């Protein structure tokens, strides 16, 4: 079965640079979520999209933005990167419109800011 795809898997950036993370949800899933997991921490919700509209927002810095495109893939844009942004970024998808709240996670993008 197809899973959530994330690219790139690893990314190294310098402070103040910009990064773009991409997510391709499971086919026919209508909701995409972004989470950030710091070292030794649990995943923290950043933002979600339902049918290409932003549906919920968590503790996402103003330096970050995200969108979902017509083909349902999503991108997380991160600007003015800081050392503290180094983390594992997960994308997850679900079929919320069918009442299923199970979220399936991608393998994550490991971002290192130097």
């Amino acid at each position: 079965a197809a899973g959530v795809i994330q690219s790139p898997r690893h990314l190294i950036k310098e402070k103040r640079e910009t990064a773009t993370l991409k997510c391709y949800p499971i086919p026919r899933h209508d909701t995409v979520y972004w989470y950030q997991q710091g070292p030794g921490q649990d995943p923290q919700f950043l933002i979600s999209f339902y049918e290409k509209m932003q549906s919920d927002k968590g503790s996402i810095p103003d330096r970050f933005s995200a969108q979902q495109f017509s083909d349902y893939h999503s991108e997380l844009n991160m600007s003015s990167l800081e050392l503290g942004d180094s983390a594992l970024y997960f994308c997850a998808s679900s079929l919320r419109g069918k009442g299923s709240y199970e979220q399936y996670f991608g393998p994550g993008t490991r971002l290192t800011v130097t």
Partner: protein
Amino acid sequence: AQTVTQSQPEMSVQEAETVTLSCTYDTSESDYYLFWYKQPPSRQMILVIRQEAYKQQNATENRFSVNFQKAAKSFSLKISDSQLGDAAMYFCAYTSGGTASKLTFGTGTRLQVTL
């Protein structure tokens, strides 16, 4: 705000034995969903089992089962016949569903499986 608490930072179990991981949560909602996720060293988040709050029957998936006590707001995970591949970080997670269907995670329990 909903909170999820896992009070066992680490647990250890011998291969083939049974272990129970604890999770409690706090919510004022009557309808919600609970999950257990496994995160092995690869850091992949793997859905293990889910429980809908409106269902009284405890969920079971092969060697994994839950003990859902709605009144006590408790949601424990039992792993039977533990295997070396079960060694991982286990996260309990909650969502109220609807438009705010984000997952709120507990801090995790690291499970070691010994021979």
